[in-house]
Structures are given as C-alpha cells and as structure tokens.
C-alpha cells in the first residue's frame, strides 16, 4: 500500500533515457523521478545534456531509447503540444515570447490551440459558444496575470517589457496551460539579485499551488534555497542526486561541476 502511494506520488518518471546526435551521446541511460509537489533541480556543466533532457521530455526531439512516464502514462513519442495538454509546461533558456503580440495575447497562447474549445466554425460565426469560450479563457488568463503581477502590463507589447518581466511573462504563459509539472530552463539567467528574489518568490508560490517543478540552473544560491532534490548530470549521465546539502559535498560533483565557487558556498 505504501509502495502504491509512493508510485502515485511520482509525477515524472524517466528510465534509461538515451539520446544520440549522430555519433555523440547527449543523454545516456538517464533515470530521474520527480515527486509530486517537489521542486527538483537539474544541474551540471555546460553541454552535459540538461536542456536536451527538457527537449526530450517535451517531445521536441525524438528519443533513442528509454521511457518517459508522466502520471503513470508513457509520453515518449508524443508531439510537444500533446505533452503540453497532458500537463507539462516549460520555459526556455533564451526567452521565447512573441515580441509583436501583447502580454495578454502571449499569455492567451498558453490556452493552446486544437484541444477542444470552440472550433473554427464557431469562431467565424461568432456563436454564443465561441463567445463563452473566449470569455472563460480571458478570465483565466487575467487571473494568472494577476497572480504573476503583470495585470498592469497586459496591453503592452511583449518586446517593450524589461527583461525580468519577460521572464515572468514566459512563466505566466506556461501557467496558463494549467500544468501539473513545470519545467524551467535557467529561469534566473541574466536577472539581477532583486529580480531573482522576485522570481524565487513566484516559483515558491507556484509550487504552493501544487505544481511540481523541474528546473535547470547555474546559480547555486538559487538552487540551495529552492530545490528539494537535485540531479547532477555530466556528459549526459547522472553522477549524483540528493538534497543540495548532500550534493555540494560530493567530490565527484565538485570536481566535475562546482569547483572553487561551489566549495565557497559549502
């Protein structure tokens, strides 16, 4: 019974995941479990395959071997949008928002296209069903924008936003998809301390809503404060996992990744 519970608590289960680009093995026999409600971190040197893992989970690249299970169902081989519909949302290392669209429209994009809702005929004919659908979406999006503190900027064109706000917008857009698991790719990159603080608060708030989070980050102070569990990757393989306090003492990790800076933190 207890084991059953344990199984249920695992949101994302990756087993033996392998990805090759030509002759290069980018991800090698990787096992990762993300538990319900946790904030997990994926760290490792540059080129160790962290972003590739996110790309494999979200279906951008086809996998060469292994299994990815989300909420007990296999999701490998699904196109990115179906992965999204199942409840996995993500952000990108380099912010990818639609510059010429407004903040609201960017967030609305998180409602996706093609999963139910009013179809093209309803859209063109402006039926009550379409209007209802649109009104509901609008309310939802406004609620999330409020949550992320972007309400005042909703009519602004996204490219006019400061960098930190664009990061937040990208996360808000991911939230609109109603994810159960949120993948964040270096959310703190390029942010100043103040912005990082805001971001950490936002991530905690998101986590409080019961959304599990898997994030990639290089800022150790960020990881130290947020992550419940850390996976360390090197050359596509996992070299360690555990809580941050344990990880940062691991000699392999220090040698491959943390170096002096890491030791200072420890």
């Amino acid at each position: 019974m207890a084991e059953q519970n344990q199984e249920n608590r695992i949101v994302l289960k990756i087993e033996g995941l392998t990805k090759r680009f030509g002759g290069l093995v980018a991800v090698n026999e990787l096992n990762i479990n993300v538990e319900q409600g946790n904030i997990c971190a994926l760290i490792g040197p540059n080129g160790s395959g962290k972003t590739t893992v996110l790309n494999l989970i979200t279906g951008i690249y086809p996998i060469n071997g292994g299994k990815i299970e989300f909420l007990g169902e296999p999701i490998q081989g699904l196109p990115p949008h179906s992965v999204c519909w199942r409840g996995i949302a993500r952000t990108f290392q380099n912010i990818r928002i639609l510059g010429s669209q407004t903040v609201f429209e960017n967030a609305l994009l998180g409602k996706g296209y093609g999963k139910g809702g009013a179809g093209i005929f309803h859209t063109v004919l402006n039926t009550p069903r379409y209007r209802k659908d649109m009104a509901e979406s609008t309310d939802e999006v406004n609620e999330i924008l409020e949550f992320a503190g972007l309400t005042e900027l909703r009519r602004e064109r996204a490219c006019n936003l400061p960098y930190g706000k664009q990061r937040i917008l990208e996360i808000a857009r991911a939230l609109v998809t109603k994810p159960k698991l949120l993948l964040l790719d270096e959310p703190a990159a390029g942010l100043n301390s103040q912005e990082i603080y805001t971001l950490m608060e936002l991530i905690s708030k998101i986590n409080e809503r019961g959304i599990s989070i898997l994030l990639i980050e290089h800022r150790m102070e960020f990881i130290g404060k947020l992550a419940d569990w850390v996976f360390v990757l090197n050359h596509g393989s996992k070299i360690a996992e555990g809580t941050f306090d344990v990880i940062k003492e691991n000699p392999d990790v220090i040698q491959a990744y943390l170096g002096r800076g890491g030791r200072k933190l420890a």
Partner: protein
Amino acid sequence: MKKVKTLLHKYILLVIGFILLILPLFTSQYEFYVVERGVQNAIQVLGLLILIGYSGMMSLGSAALLATGSYTYGILLVKLGISPWLGALLAIIITTLIGTLLAFPSFRLAGPFLVVTTVGFGEIVRILLLNLESLTGGAYGLEGYENLFADSRLVYAFMVVTLLLVAVGTQRISNSKLGLALKSIRQDEVAAEIMGVDVRRAKMVSFALSAMLAGLSGVFLANLTGYMSPDSFTSAESTTYLLMVVMGGMNSVVGAIISSIVITALPEFLRFLSSSRLLVYSLVLLIYLRVHWVKSSRPSCAGVAKKLKINIGNNKSGRGGGNG
C-alpha cells in the same frame, strides 16, 4: 467629427461593401468588369492573408489553387452536367482538400524550401491543365458552363456579399485563439508547440482556409470570364497575388481588400505606361519594401490600413472576440 470617425472605424467593412454595391451605377461596363475582378481577387487575397500574413508561410502557388477551383467547377458542369450551385460547392470542397495536402510539406519545411515547393505545385498544376486534354480541354481551354446566376449583376452582388462575410470571418479569426496560434507559428513555431498549439493542425487549417477561399475565388472567376484556359493561372498571377497581400500590409483585412481592388484597377490609371507597367509595379513594391520595412522592421505592420488610420474592431485584448 470624431463621432463620424469612430463610426467609420467600426463599420468600415460595411462602407466598403456599400460602395462596391453601388459602384456599378457610376461605371461603364468595362470599368465594372475591372471592379468585378478586383472583388474576386480580394477573396483570393484574404485567403493568402491568412496563410502569408498571419501564419507566415509564403506561397507562390496561389494561382494554381485558383485554377483548381475554376477548373473543377468548369469540369463538373461541362463533363458531368451537374447544377452550378452543387458544382460550386464541390469545387470549393475539392480545392480545399488539395490545398490541405499542400500543408504536409509545411510540417517539415519553412522559408525558401516551402516557397520552392509551392512554385513546383504551381508548375505541376499548369502542366496538368495543358496536358490532361480530355478533362481540361488542354490549351483550348474550357467553356460552355452555366453561371451561378443568369444575370451577371446578381453574380456580382453575391460576390460582394460573400467578400464581406469572408472579411468578417477573416477578421474574427485574426482576433481568436486560432489567429493567435497562426501568428505564433509565424514568430516562433517551437514555442507555440510547447504552449500546446497543435501546430500541424493550425497549419492545415491555415492552408485549408486559404485554399477554400482560392476555390471560391476560382468559381467566381469562372463565372466572370465564362471561359478558362491555362494561361490565366501562371506563376506571374501568383506573384501578383503576393504583391496584393504585401501591399495590403500583411496584417490587415481592410488593407488586403483595398490593395487587391486598387492593384487590379491600377493598369487603367497606368495606361500611359503601356509595356513598362509591370516594371513600375515591381519598382513600387521594391521601394515600399525597402522604405517601409526597414523603417519599421517589426513583424507586424498594418500597412495601408494603418496609414489610413483604420483598423476595424481590432480588439487587442481579444476579449469577447470579433466585432459587432
């Protein structure tokens, strides 16, 4: 004055429709034909607006889809003898299906790769029209079919009303989730897909809609000319349609309609240029692209419509959708 302006703002489509409907009163028979062609082109261009302007997928095969619509209508009527309305409906359906097939290459291809594919499609259709003589009449062309209405003025009125409905529909799509999905494909396909946009489906819808409008436009073209031959559907025609979309601002329904009608009628005002007409056209387009797009090199610019400060019911927030 301001009131008039906002009113104009809101009902610009109806005003255009009204002007188009009463236009035959003031034109000679010849000028009227030019207007008819303009309206027919506008329907086609609205389809391209969805494909090129919204979704950012360049096509140089639009004349081939126009041909498909036209010829299917003609062949169904001449060879099978079915009624014009049924023929028109089937022609639109068949063109839509063929156009949707064109979406498949777009799943993997973008930019020049896709454009060359559509150029190829255009060539293929042209060659088939010329060589499948028993079906298409080959180089002799096809004639002897009935029109939708016996009175050509009724055809025109029907066409204008159709144009208005199509325009309203296109505008609504622009403000809807579908429109947003299409625009997101243009700007960042991967991000769109990650956000749960079914990119393949959106692309198919985009191709299907543009093909449907091309088919519709083709049926009208068949009705206007009463005769069809392969030479009316060359790559030069595709280029002209592209020109109409670009000059319309790539983002505005009203702009697209105005630019199609103006560009169709332009030869009449440029008579004095005689054989260097196309030279002047392309020069104008080149200058427009160079000046306008370098100045405001943003992905979306409303072009003509923006210049005229008209932007119908552009509900930026997208709330409620559509315009009254």
